Each structure stands twice: as C-alpha cells, then as structure tokens.
C-alpha cells in the first residue's frame, strides 16, 4: 500500500456528498414544492373559451330588437409569426399600420407562446375575404366573437350598449377575464347576469409550439357554453320609433307607461344616437365625439334630467289639500292677475274666481298659492314646518324624491327638500312662514323631478292613487320575473279625491272651456292632461305636458319634455297627444295630420341645418 491510500476516503466523501446534495435537492423539488407541478400543468394546458351568445331582446309584441352577429378577432402567436407583408395585411384589415405594429409589440411583450388579440371585431365580409389569404400569414388566426346588432334603429338609451370589461370589474368579479364583453348601460347592464349566459371552456394539451396535441383528461373537464337568456321588454318598438321621430331636432324626453302594469311603453331621450353607433369598432370612433357634444346625446334625459316640474305639479297640491280637508272641490279662490300678499306677488293672467276643476283647466297660479298656503298653515297642525313636512310625506308617496323605476339604474332621484334644508337655507332658526315657500305652489323653486317620475305621477293619477314601479323588462326566457314589479305602491291620497282632478285635466284639452291645451284635443278620445312650463335659468323655458288616456280604464300615461319649448301647449302637449292617439288608434286621424306635420318639421336645435344627421355613417 502506498502512502497516499488514505486519500481514497476524501475522494469517496466528495462523491457521496454530491450524491446526497442531489437527493436533497430532488426531494425538495419533487416532493416538498408543489409550484413546479402547477407550472407544468399551466405549461401544457390551453384553455379555449367558448363564448356564449348574448340573450336576444324583444319588444312587448314579440318584435326582435337586438340580436347577435358574428365578428372576428385577429389573433397572433408571436413565436409562430414569420416574415410577412405588414402593409398588405393592414390594407386587407383596414387598420392603420402604426396601430398594428404597436399591437404586435404588445402581443410579444405579453407572451411569445400564447395568442393575443391584435385586431378586434373584423366584419364577416372582411373575414370572408381574408380567409383565402391567411396562408400568407402564419401565426395569425381568427377567433369568433359576437357583436350586438339591431333590427330597429331605436331605443338606444333604453337598450344600452356592450363593451369590453374594465380592470376594476375583472378584479371584483372573477367571472370576467380581460377581453370579455359586458353590458355598460341600459338593459344590457341591468340584466347583464341574465343576458351574458355562461362561458364554456375546453382544455387542450399543447406542446411548446402551442400546437394542440389532444384533449385534457379526455375532455371530462370541458364545459359547453350556455346561451344567455332572452328578454321581452315592455317597449312597443313602433311607438318608441314614432316618439323618437317626433323628438327629432329637439332636445327633451318622453316617457310613456301603461298605468295598469307600470310597463314602460316608450322612453325617449333626445337628441340620441343610433344603437349601431356604439357597437364594436364604431364605438371607438363615435364615443369621444358624442361625449364631447354640447347637446349630450349620451345623457339619458328621461332618467337623469332634473327639472322643476312647473304647473304639471299643481294636481299634487290639489290632491293633498283635498286629502287634508283644507279645501273642498267647491272652495273658490279669486285670481286678481295673481296672488298678492303685501309686497309679494305670484303673477297670473286671470281676473276671475276659480274652483278646483277650473283652476286645473286654466292653470291658475293664484288658486294654488292659496291652496298651498292652506296646506302649510293647516290649523290642525302645529305650524308651517309641520305643514310642510306633512305635505312632503304626500309628495314622496307619489313616487318623488327617490328612484321610482325598477330596472333603470341610471335614474336620478330628483329633489324634494326636507324641512332641514329649508331650516338651514331659508329660515335659519327664525319662525317658519308660508310665503318663502310659495313658489312650490306652481312647481317652481327648489323642487326637481325627472321625466320618468312625472310619467309615473301621470300613471298614479290615471290609477286613482297607486302605481307599479315603472320597468322595461316584462319577462325573461327562463321564467324569472322579479317580484318587486308586481308590488303595488299606494299613495297616501284617498282614491275618492281623484274624480274632480280628472275633470279638471279633461277640461285642459277642451276647447269649450277653454283649457290650456285645447288645440291638442283628440276627437274621440278622452285625454286627461296638464300643461306646464319648467323654468330654465339658462335660456328659454322647457315645454312640459303630462297626460293619460282614455279617462276610463286608461291605457297610457305619458310625460313629455321639450327643452326650450317655452309653453306646454306649444310642443309637449301636441307631441303627447300624437303619441296617445298613435298608441290607442294605431294611426293619426286626418284632421290632426297638420299637428303631426308641424311637430315633425319643428327644429329647435339647428333651425339652420334642417337635415342634419348626427353620427350615423
């Protein structure tokens, strides 16, 4: 044995130590850590989403309003892309080459192996053209998506639009993944969970080049997509179209409700847009223009515009006064060109005494100043403050000062100040008096209501004291109907008090009386209505009108606002009665054709540009 033979132990030690280090490392890799198993599964598993088609939307008569149309997203897998003619591809796709380059860079940044969307929503026609050229572009392929399509170019505001989910929604709702579509406004948003359906997933094993090698676990985990539920709306698409036509070249809104059910027959906000304008790639172009437009076409006035209600509010006082017993239908107040107390005057244009019906027919300001004062100074109560609070309770029970609709989420609440508001802003710890509040008598001052609240108020008048929450969806294909739309809301006014009010509202359209809107009378139909003028500090006052018809067993209640239309009888009343006639008779009788023509011709927006069409291409 040589002198260095002990060194074999050192060498063996090195061999064994390396072996032990490997075993320890292998044990941590394979047995302790689970991260690598997950990554390996993620490596080979490709999830292919099977997008469900969104539910269809019908009108109340079964007319299809919204359906789906295929669109195609161009996908790119950067690793598979070889040299290609970018210019030609961009020409074929009709996209700017700079944008395309940016998208390709983004895709490369995201993943070299996984596909990303580079061009969104290519039309079926272009897709068909592209199909035969695709062999020139390895690494690119199409993914089928669906886009909304519309059979009628109406009801854009009610239907709402669909767009891509934003980051906050992805963070909050795990169902949504980047690139998914979601309802952003209107019915599309309110009924998103019904319309969207359920995404399907198929899992494939793929190799390193992202080539599909087979299904995962024999497809046991795969799910089919489930189509979204169809909706039947309460809209009458023909009436909706007619209402939109009447509102062309005007700003304002119309809400028509079936009083017996609370179903919204038509809801117009003008100026509006065509539903197609906000679909897919067009939205990218149109939306910023619309958002910048001073006439606010994206703004749903019917739900969000809060105006002082004006004279249409007068029946509210009458009903409360009757209910509180501070007047009777035969109580008479004299109008002496207005209501005068000391130095204060509420102007009016009559010089006669009115009872209830006449005060409505001729919209006497003095009458309501007296009446409102009686409500406030009700001797049965402790003072003006309590009188006001009692009055407010009644007003709130008529659907004001809160969201009155069931499924139109954008709706604003309006404003009926509570007593604290007046305490703070008007009386400031001094004694409450009736005079500072008196402008409320004619629907001016601090109160604000929305058109849909006014239409609901018309429906309450038609129903003699109760309402269903106004809503736009009647039924869902899976049979779900929310119980809330079947819940009756009763006002605090006794039904007996409505007859005299209706008499007055009937006289509004009676030329013999003469009512304030007698020129809007529809021969053969008993319409109860009330004109109004909503004060506008920014320009000409707004023309308003509320009505329901027929008086017995009413089928339609309506509120019409025409901005800068000055007086109710000028535009709002004729438009409202045209809609009522159209709805009840199906057509406009020849004797009223001139009214229709007048309304259609009226251009309050751009009188100098009669045929100006916005946005639509």
């Amino acid at each position, binding site marked *: 044995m040589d002198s260095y*033979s002990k060194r074999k132990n050192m*060498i*063996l030690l*090195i*061999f064994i130590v390396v072996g032990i280090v490997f075993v320890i*490392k292998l044990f941590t*890799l394979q047995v302790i850590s689970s991260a690598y198993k997950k990554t*390996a599964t993620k490596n080979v598993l490709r999830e292919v989403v099977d997008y469900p088609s969104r539910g269809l939307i019908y009108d109340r008569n079964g007319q299809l309003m919204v359906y789906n149309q295929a669109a195609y997203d161009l996908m790119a897998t950067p690793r598979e892309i070889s040299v290609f003619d970018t210019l030609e591809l961009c020409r074929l796709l009709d996209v700017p080459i700079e944008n395309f380059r940016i998208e390709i860079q983004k895709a490369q940044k995201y993943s070299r192996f996984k596909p990303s969307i580079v061009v969104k929503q290519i039309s079926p026609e272009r897709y068909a053209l592209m199909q035969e050229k695709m062999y020139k572009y390895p690494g690119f392929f199409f993914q089928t998506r669906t886009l909304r399509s519309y059979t009628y170019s109406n009801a854009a505001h009610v239907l709402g639009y669909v767009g891509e989910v934003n980051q906050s929604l992805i963070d909050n709702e795990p169902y949504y993944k980047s690139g998914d579509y979601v309802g952003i406004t209107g019915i599309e948003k309110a009924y998103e969970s019904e319309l969207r359906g359920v995404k399907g997933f198929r899992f494939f094993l*793929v190799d390193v080049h992202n080539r599909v090698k087979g299904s995962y676990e024999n497809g046991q985990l795969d799910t089919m997509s489930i189509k979204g539920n169809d909706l039947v709306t309460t809209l009458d698409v023909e009436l909706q179209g007619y209402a939109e036509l009447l509102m062309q070249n005007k700003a304002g809104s119309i809400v028509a409700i079936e009083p017996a059910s609370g179903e919204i027959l038509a809801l117009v906000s003008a100026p509006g847009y065509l539903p197609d304008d906000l679909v897919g790639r067009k939205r990218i172009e149109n939306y910023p223009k619309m958002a910048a437009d001073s006439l606010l076409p994206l703004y749903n006035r019917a739900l969000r515009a809060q105006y002082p209600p004006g004279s249409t509010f007068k029946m509210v006082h009458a009903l409360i006064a009757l209910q509180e017993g501070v007047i009777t239908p035969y109580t008479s107040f004299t109008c002496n060109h207005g209501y005068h107390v000391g130095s204060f005057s509420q102007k009016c244009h009559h010089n006669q005494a009115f009872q209830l019906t006449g005060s409505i027919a001729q919209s006497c300001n003095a009458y309501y100043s007296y009446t409102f004062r009686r409500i406030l100074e009700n001797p049965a109560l402790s003072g003006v403050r309590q009188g006001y609070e009692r009055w407010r309770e009644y007003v709130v029970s008529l659907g004001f000062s809160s969201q009155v609709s069931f499924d139109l989420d954008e709706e604003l609440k309006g404003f009926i100040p509570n007593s604290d508001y007046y305490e703070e802003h008007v009386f400031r710890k001094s004694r409450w008096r009736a005079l500072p509040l008196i402008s409320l008598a004619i629907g001016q001052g601090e109160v604000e209501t929305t058109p849909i609240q006014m239409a609901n108020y018309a429906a309450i008048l038609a129903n003699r004291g109760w309402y269903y929450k106004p809503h736009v969806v009647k039924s869902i294909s899976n049979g779900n109907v929310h119980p809330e739309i079947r819940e009756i809301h009763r006002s605090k006014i006794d039904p007996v008090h409505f007859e005299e009010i209706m008499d007055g509202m009937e006289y509004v359209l009676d030329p013999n009386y003469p009512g304030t809107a007698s020129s809007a009378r529809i021969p053969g139909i008993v319409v109860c209505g009330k004109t109004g003028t909503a004060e506008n500090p920014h320009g000409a006052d707004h023309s308003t009108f509320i009505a329901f018809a027929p008086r017995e067993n009413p089928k339609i209640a309506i509120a019409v606002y025409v901005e800068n239309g000055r007086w109710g009888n000028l535009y709002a009343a004729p438009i409202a009665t045209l809609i009522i006639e159209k709805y009840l008779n199906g057509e406009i009788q020849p004797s009223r054709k001139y009214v229709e023509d007048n309304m259609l011709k009226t251009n309050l927006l751009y009188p100098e540009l009669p045929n100006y069409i916005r946005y639509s291409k």
Partner: protein
Amino acid sequence: MRRNNTFLNLDWIVIVLYLFMVLAGWLNIYSAVYNEEHNNIFDLSQRYGKQLMWIGFALMLALFVIVVDSKFYVTFSYLFYALFILLLIIVLFFGKEVNGSKSWFVIGNFAFQPAEFAKYGTALAISKLLSTYNFSLKIRQNQLIAALIILLPVALIILQNDTGSALVYLIFIIPLFREGMSGLILFFGVYFTILFIGSLVMSPVAFIVVLLLLSLLVAFYFLKRWLPIGKVVLLLLAISMPFAIYQILAGDGSFDLYFVLIRSSFLTALLLLFRTIVKRIQHMPLITAVFLVSIVFSVSVDFAFNRFLEPHQQDRINHLLGIESDPLGAGYNVNQSKIAIGSGGFLGKGFLKGTQTKYDFVPEQSTDFIFCTVGEEWGFVGSLLVVAAFVWLLIRLVQLAERQRSKYSRVFGYSVAAILFFHFAINIGMTIGVAPVIGIPLPFFSYGGSSLWFFTILLFTFLRLDASRLEQLH
C-alpha cells in the same frame, strides 16, 4: 492464465450497473421522443431506434475491449494519446461546426467528437506517466509534465470553442490528488472556483456575510474558544460605526450596507492580521490572510467582469452560471427542466406520460437533459434510483482501483471514476439548477453513439485491466 478466466475475473457488479443504466437510458430516450405514430422500436429514423443500434455497437466494442490483452493498453498509452491529440488538431481544420463549436467529424451519416475520446487518451497517458518507475509528483519537473499532458487537449478543445468539454479535464486533479499531488492545490482549486462563482452569483452583501461567518467558524475550530471571536465581532461593529454614520449623514436617504460591510471587514481583518502576527498566534494570520485575499479576489472578479469583458462574453458566463433570470432567455432551459423534474412528484407521472418532455418544453431532452424525463416520469423514486446507481458505480470503481497492484491500473481506475463523476455531477446538477449549464452528456443515458461508445470503452478498459489485476503489466 487462460483467456476465459478474463470473463470470470470481470467485475460483474459494474457490468450489471452499466447494463441497467444503458437500458434505463434507452427507455427514457424512447419516452422523450415517443410519438404514437412511430412505435416500432427498431425504426432507425427515430432516435430510440438509432440508440438501440448504438447500444448494440457499444456491447460489441465492450467485448472487443475485453478480448484485447491488457498489456496492449499499457504499451500503447502514449500512442493513443498522440493519436487523439492529432485528431483534435485535424478537427480544427476539417471539423464541422455544431452549435458554434468546431468539434465534430462528419463522415456520411456518422458523426464523432474527438474531444470525448481524447479524455480516454489522456487517462491512458496520465496512468502511464504516473506509473513510471520512481515517478514522484513532488518533483516540479514531473508536475509540469503531468500538467502539460492534461492542458494540451484542453487548449485544443478551447480552440474548438467547446469550453464545456474542456472543463471536464480539470477533474484529472482527482487521480493526481490520489497519487500525492499537494492537497492544497485541490483545496484552493475548489475554494477559488467556489469564490469565483460565488462572487458572480451571490449578492455582494450575502457573499461578504457568508465569508465572514465561514472565517469566524474556522477560527473557532482552531481556537476552541468563543471569547476572542466575540471580541473580533465587537471590533468589526465598532469599526463599521463611523462608516454607517457617514452613510446616514452624507447619503441621499438610501443606506448602502455593502459600502459599510466591505470597508469595515477589510479594516478589521487588516488590524487582526498585524496583531496576530505580532502576538504569534497560531493559524490566525493564515485565516485572516485568506479572508483578505478572498475579499480582494471577489472584488476584482466583479470589477474585471463588469469592466473588461464584452457584453457577449458576460452573457456567456452568466449563461454558464445560470444567472439570467429571464425565464424565456438564457435561463429557459434550466427553468423548464426544473419544472419537468419538479412536476414528477414522488412516484412520477408514469412511463410515456410526461407532458413537459413529451411536448418539447425541455430542449435537448434526449441528450443533455435526459434526466428530466427520469425525474418527470419516474418521480423522486426513479431519480433516487439513478443517483444511487451512479454513486454506487463510483464507489465500486474506487474500490476496484484501490485493489490494483499496478499503479497504472489504479490511476486509470481513478481517472475513469473522476470522468464519470464530473459528467454525473455537472449533468444532473444543471438539470436541477445546482450546477452551471455546461452541455455535457449524462454517461450511458444521453442519446448519442459517440458519447456512449466513449464511456463504454473507458469503463471496459478499466474492467479489462481489473480482470488481469494479478498479472504483471509492466
């Protein structure tokens, strides 16, 4: 002795381990390139078909090596060496470039890498040199000759731009160490290699902290008392204070720990060095000196790396050390390889069921990264078996080497064990991310005729020598 006795004298443990590895290797190659459409195992257009053919050849070569008289190897050792050196030179001119290194001879369908076989020649030559009568590694001239024998093929292989294969030759330190080369060379060789890699791989702060702790531990090993160690730590803290205060006062709000550590530990070590020399305390001057040199070395490595190397050279070293963190860049292979092995779990996914290897996520899966297939499909149990088989083989080879009467056979035995060890350590090490990625095959497992034949000839030459261990060889 009669010829048939050779077979009786062969070490059958090694042969069984060899056959096990070759077979296991083939099964994993089959799995790595498996495809439902080609399932004839003899299909020569597929790698498993070819490998089966290579295995057949290898067995014939083994038989041939055993049949040849053992004196043949001893006699022609230098000739073999010269022949392979010649081939290494020729390949520089007529070789084919594969993956950037000009190291392959291609004749028709047949490709062969002389660098593999040059190891065989070098092993023979070193054995011959060291077994020369009266040869001692203590003599400087002998040291130079040994170094020359090893470094000549290294230089030629580096010229072929195949650094990975050249590194294998470093492992000849093991047989040299066994035969009396100073242990310090082995120690410092390993120490500075670790220092070099450590200073590039670890964060500077962690590097200094590890170095400090290590030095303190070694000092404690010699002193056997904690008190002086504590004093040194206190001294270090006291010296670091002014630097720390300077950092806080003059800095821009950020605190550079490295700045404080490097300066204070350097100063402390310098003070300690003077003090221990003056006081003549045993071992301590050496420990502090090594510490100082280590720090200077690591700083200059960092400096040289960042200052003098071109970006592409830096990339290559980073790549070699697996520093690149970009999982789709240079680190992609190791990352995917770790995923494959890690996803195998305890029992593995089963034969032909590996998704990482089957779907090509691991590159070079039938050659350099064949161990991934083992890890993924056979799990921890299979990996353990393979590692155990290699360690057993290495231990067995050391045992065989030690029982040789002839120094020639012993040195050759150690050379074989050392070469196998280097391939085993680096190859499996890189697939599990503990060794740099150097493209060298796993012996007996990796696909490829050239490497299989080389390892077969290497192993069986030693078995042949071992079988005639009772004969006088020279």
